């Protein structure tokens, strides 16, 4: 799932890749360390707000529809499989089967769904901010081969998707249709389509590889063109985000936002609201940065 890349003119886009990387590590950690419903829903809302701020709204709406269906599945599976809990909301007996819907299972299902939804949106945001040149810049000093491999792989995946789209359309002229017939026929046709893609992709990739070699790939130790300078704004952003993150982790250390015994989960506490306000501040830090950047303009 992708929503494009964020505008080059934005403050967030102009941050040093390392600053961006640290910020996203903090964000992902934040989404993993809490299991209180209000907190996770609040974080989901904050990340969604960030996506709406940076991406095209139509694309975000499409992504949201995809994410919500996955979140719905998480809730349903939790309710079906998690039979523990203190407060039974509804129960049913059918022969030897006994199903009970508990309050804690409901809360936990919703928490998991919100957490997963926020993760998906954060990943999409990461894709839009940490674009290939920045990612390569980060990886190049540590693992240069992996950096190049990643760049090539991303390009080839893109080409493969374009090819898949074209083949799905034109192979209909060979009666290879994945949207008609019984389920078995559709699965069979999908297999045939993938076989065709594989054959053509290998043929194209061989030619591309030769042309890469013809332009000196592998002939010499590669250099790195893209250079990013660490600016004062990076220092300020990084410092603020690390302190903010430290405070949140400190509170979590004290037991805020986490319940070890899942059967004791509750809908929300006063501590959760306070923690949510602090955490949302960290999530929305780039938007605060945008404000500052615009105020700073001549």
């Amino acid at each position, binding site marked *: 799932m992708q929503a494009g890349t964020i505008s080059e003119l934005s403050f967030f886009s102009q941050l040093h890749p390392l600053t961006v990387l640290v910020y996203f590590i903090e964000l992902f950690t934040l989404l993993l360390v809490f299991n209180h419903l209000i907190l996770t829903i609040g974080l989901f809302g904050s990340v969604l707000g960030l996506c709406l701020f940076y991406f095209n709204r139509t694309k975000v709406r499409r992504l949201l529809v995809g994410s919500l269906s996955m979140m719905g599945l998480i809730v349903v599976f939790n309710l079906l499989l998690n039979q523990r809990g203190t407060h039974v909301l509804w129960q049913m007996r059918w022969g030897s089967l006994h199903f009970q819907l508990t309050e804690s299972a409901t809360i936990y299902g919703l928490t998991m769904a919100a957490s997963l939804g926020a993760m998906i949106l954060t990943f999409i945001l990461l894709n839009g901010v940490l674009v290939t040149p920045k990612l390569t810049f980060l990886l190049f000093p540590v693992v240069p081969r992996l950096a190049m491999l990643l760049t090539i792989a991303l390009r080839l995946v893109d080409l493969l998707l374009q090819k898949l789209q074209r083949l799905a359309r*034109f192979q209909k*002229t*060979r009666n290879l249709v994945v949207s008609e017939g019984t389920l078995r026929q559709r699965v069979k046709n999908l297999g045939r389509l993938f076989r065709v893609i594989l054959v053509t992709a290998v043929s194209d990739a061989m030619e591309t590889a030769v042309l890469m*070699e013809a*332009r000196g790939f592998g002939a010499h130790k590669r*250099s790195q063109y893209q250079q990013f300078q660490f600016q004062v704004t990076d220092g300020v952003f990084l410092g603020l985000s690390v302190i903010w993150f430290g405070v949140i982790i400190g509170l979590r250390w004290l037991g805020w936002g986490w319940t070890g015994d899942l059967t004791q989960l509750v809908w929300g506490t006063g501590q959760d609201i306070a923690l949510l306000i602090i955490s949302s501040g960290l999530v929305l830090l780039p938007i605060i940065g945008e404000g500052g950047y615009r105020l700073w303009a001549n």
Partner: protein
Amino acid sequence: MGELIRMENFSFTYPQQKKMALQQVDLRIATGDFITLVGATGSGKTTLLKQFKRELVPAGEAHGTVTFQGEAIQDLALTTSAQKIGFVAQNPLTQPIMATVLEELTFPLENLGYSTTQINSRIAELANFLGLDQLLPRAIKTLSGGQIQLVNLASVLALEPDVILLDEPTAQLDPTTAQNFLNVLRQVHDELGITIVLTEHRLSRVLALANRLVVLQSGSIIYDGNVSAGLEKMTALPELADFVPPIPQFFLQHHLETRPLPLTVPTGRQLLAQRRYRFEQRPNLGAKDALVARDDSLLTVKKLLVHFDDQIVLRRLELTVPRGDWLAIIGKNGSGKSTLLSVLAGLLKPEHGKVWLAKQLVWKMKNLERLRTVAYLAQNPTDQFSGKTVIEELRDQARLADPPVTEQQVTQWLATLRLTAVAHQNVFDLSGGQQQLVGLGLALMTRPQLLLLDEPTKGLDPTTKRQLGTILQRVHAAGTTIVMASHDMAFCAQYAQRCTFMFAGQLNQPVTSRQFFTQNFLFTTAINRLLRDQVPTALFSTDVRQTLKGGE
């Protein structure tokens, strides 16, 4: 001028082949040369070109020597080969590996370990020289074929090579884009002094840039010299006569004694005026342009609207195609021709509007029923292949016909398409021309009433093009209605009954081909542009005869 590349007594045979692809070739390329390599498909042009760069040398048995600045090509260091000898391939999409134009241009420089400062200055200079500065941040996938080919050339130029080898670089481009690309190539040659060696089928534009013409036939060089004399030699050879561009061909066919031969319309017009050559229309011209009956429509399109993202591609488009028609849709790349054909073939459902095939809505037909009625040849026929041998592909499609096409008929089709010799080869191993013929075979195998062709002559050499035209004429005479989208003015003028122009997502009212091309100013044949003042209805050399000899 110093010698750059020397090939001496060179022969080459591909693995498991008895026939030599190159036979005792001797060729010397001097610094500053602009050489055009010409030859029919399979004559060895690409094989010859690939011998000049070590990374591209195909597997096979070679005898003789190839040297670059006195050093054997195979002994060149990889860095030297990458830096000094550039290569641009036929298909623009196979070369780019990075996501954006800037990254693609920096790719070869990073490969050779250039510093950021060096890369910066090279790219800045190059992007401004080639007019690519506005494209630098753009993603490769958002560029047109012509823009990508220009990026490919720029990426090779970034290393400041001594020679650039180009394998049919404009074969996949429309005429206007091809002309732009060649203009840049001329600039690269004239202003930077870089040696150019390119293979090409469409010679009308490129020959004016070349100082040498090298003609290949069955793996041997049969001519190496100036362009004008080379064209005379080619005219005398049945296999290569079709390759001679229309303007010099006109002068040769009408025995106009002008040497060197003119290569462009302006020089041709100048010569006609200077020598006072006069022409008149041949009698019965236009007799074959009879219109088809209008009352029996096979295809009816009403208020078609298609958009991708926020861009409208087809705008309330209307069209009626009578049974037995042969309609050509002409327009620039990106004008929506391919999208229209996909909709007509039922492969793409439009947001609004209707497409009726006889009395059925085309996208409501079952796929099998539809492909028995409408056949479609894609711009890139490999998108329709399954990756089997030629005969297996045709057999698979033959089974879809109602009643199924017999094995004997499949064999007959192989012969008609001149594919018998390659019947057991994998379709991906064939030349572009042969792949196009396989694609046509697949389209015709289900005996369709309507045949839709998207750029059927793209990348074809003149001989294969003529072959394609003949097959289509036969199919059309048997009652198949044809709608084709094409940039190829001469092909459309020669074969289509009616033509129309696609512009801003709409089609103009179709008119007869002769009317269409004689009323056009830019989109017409080279002969029409040459003789417009004398015989405005002339489209081909054979449409006129000489009335006065020069000076009389």
